[in-house]
């Protein structure tokens, strides 16, 4: 890979991305436009996250990559290989050992600590996009802090269905100022962002936006006093490790309605089983 720079991107591009990241950290939840590059992986496969990771990775970093909570999903394997090949950094599946965790659709179950960075792959950075398709109009709403449209949407859900019908990519208010899309993590994961000791960086490659939640920032899932935000998970416990509080994947085991529920976070599940086996 000697034809390519460390971690694929050239240093000027990395510097440009890091400038966007610094601005994003300085204004939590605010979407910063950046000169997103074409990457050798397709848009939608995590080009934003990959550019962020490439720009912050150092030779001593330990990288973990997950998709749907798992280290062994095909896209996670592919991205981990990409950085192992282009940057030669150490990789791990252990959440606790990783200094940088790139993720698609989940936040690890294991509590994050200071110094860790979580990089999110973001398909649609604009939380208002389903309500206001024009990005020009949406950025004006952000500038004015005018989020009435979103509150009306939540209100209408409650009036019609009794609940907010958003189950993933559930909008959050960051630092009481910006409405932010937490990326398509299940709403179950939203509380993990609130006052998290880790740094959370969000990269949207196709939409060319970067945003961030710095450590210990208040992140509130949007709700109403009389209809507080509620977590949703399958009520079962994990069939492999017995966890009762982790987020579960539903596995269809036959065509007779057979189901099995297992942890979506494979590292968390494996660690619990190892501990059980040791005892």
């Amino acid at each position, binding site marked *: 890979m000697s034809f*390519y720079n460390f971690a*694929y991107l*050239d240093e000027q591009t990395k510097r440009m991305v890091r400038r966007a990241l610094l601005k994003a950290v300085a204004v939590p939840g605010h979407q910063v*436009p*950046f*000169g*997103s*590059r*074409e*990457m*050798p992986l*397709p*848009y*939608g*496969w995590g*080009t934003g996250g990959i550019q962020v990771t490439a720009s912050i990775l150092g030779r001593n970093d330990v990288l973990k990559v997950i*998709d*749907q*909570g*798992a280290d*062994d*999903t*095909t*896209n996670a*394997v*592919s991205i981990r290989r990409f950085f192992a090949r282009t940057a030669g950094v150490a990789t791990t599946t252990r959440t606790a050992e990783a200094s940088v965790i790139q993720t*698609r*659709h*989940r936040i690890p179950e294991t509590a994050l600590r200071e110094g860790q960075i979580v990089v999110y792959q973001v*398909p649609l950075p604009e939380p208002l996009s389903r309500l206001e398709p*024009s*990005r*020009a109009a949406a950025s004006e709403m952000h500038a004015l802090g005018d989020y009435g449209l979103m509150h009306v949407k939540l209100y209408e859900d409650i009036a019609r*269905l*009794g*609940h907010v*019908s958003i*189950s*993933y*990519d559930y909008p959050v208010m960051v630092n009481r100022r910006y409405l932010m899309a937490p990326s*398509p*993590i*299940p*709403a179950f994961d939203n509380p993990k962002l609130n006052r998290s000791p880790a740094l959370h960086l969000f990269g949207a490659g*196709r939409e*060319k*936006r970067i945003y961030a939640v710095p450590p210990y920032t208040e992140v509130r899932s949007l709700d109403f006093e009389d209809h507080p935000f509620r977590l*949703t*998970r*399958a009520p079962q416990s994990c069939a492999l490790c017995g966890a009762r509080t982790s*987020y*579960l*994947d*539903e*596995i*269809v*085991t036959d065509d007779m309605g057979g189901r099995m529920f*297992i942890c*979506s976070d*494979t590292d968390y599940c494996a660690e619990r089983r190892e501990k059980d086996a040791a005892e």
Partner: protein
Amino acid sequence: MAYVAVKGGERAIDAAHAWLAEERRGDPDVPEITIAQIGEQLGRAVDRVMAEASCYDPALASLAIKQAQGDLIEAAFLLRAYRTTLPRFAAARPIDTDAMQISRRISAIYKDLPGGQVLGPTYDYTHRLLDFRLADGAPPADDSPPASALQDMPKNGAEEGAAAGRMKPVSAILAHEGLIEEDDVADAPPGDLTREPLAFPAGRDLRLQALARGDEGFLLSLGYSTQRGWGGTHPFVGEIRVGEVAIEIDPPELGFPIEIGDIIVTECQMVNQFKGSKAAPPQFTRGYGLCFGHGERKAMAMALVDRAMRAEELGEEVIAPAQTIEFVLSHCDNIEATGFVEHLKLPHYVDFQSELETIRRLRREAEAFASQDRREAAE
């Protein structure tokens, strides 16, 4: 367990790639296609890939087509992902299409004009009958012209035009009478949406850049929609020209421009009706299309959409998709589009699981309400 098939697989990826390579090669008894063959014999495909990749390199585009098994969007993607890593050592001077070495130049608005009509290599007047002789690599069909037909034609452009060295665009004839708007000449260096993210409203420089690398099919349909009443602009093909232009750069240490190579481009100038406004008298307006290689369909569609997107600037009502700048620019890039559409193939089971739980909860409650209603009705 079914789940093994979805999660997991370093081995699965390796096996898939090996299978793909085998499929790409096809039957090993059939000779392998060469890059040179693609470049020489599938030129229009190579041109399209170079245009949509924004990278003029026929050899690499041919390689990309071979690697992508002829999937041209995939090929453009390969070439773009290569282009993005290239250092930029200079910005070229604007190309001078008046000085083009013309292989084709036609106008639909004047029967004859300075420089002449040069039909050039075109499918326009071919009969679309499958030529079965081509299948065997055989001599041309009986009704195809003798090779001497080519020798009767002036090569590389009409003689008068070539002799003059420069051929003014047709729009210059209209401009001479003041019947067409002035070309807007910007002093500022043009933007580059591959370096800076697009912001709206986007200037015409960025719009043209986006269109030049935009998907030919998407622009064709949008252009077509303007002809069918969705943002009509009453277009005429002022001129289409195809040929070679020189690329020049200004090395600062030299103080004069030097030529670094030639590229083939297709340029289209549409002439559109304009009824006039309070500020401007009735006059013709312009739509402009330019793309790498021989791509008339692309250049024409681009010119239609360029003009349609000028609706607001010209005080026309913006009602149709082709006139909506943000809509067109946000969706014309096929690499972005194919990525986001095809990413739906990636696993979404975490999100789907949360949808399952939500819909189950909603249904439980709906049933509870329904049975309560039934009880109340019974009482």
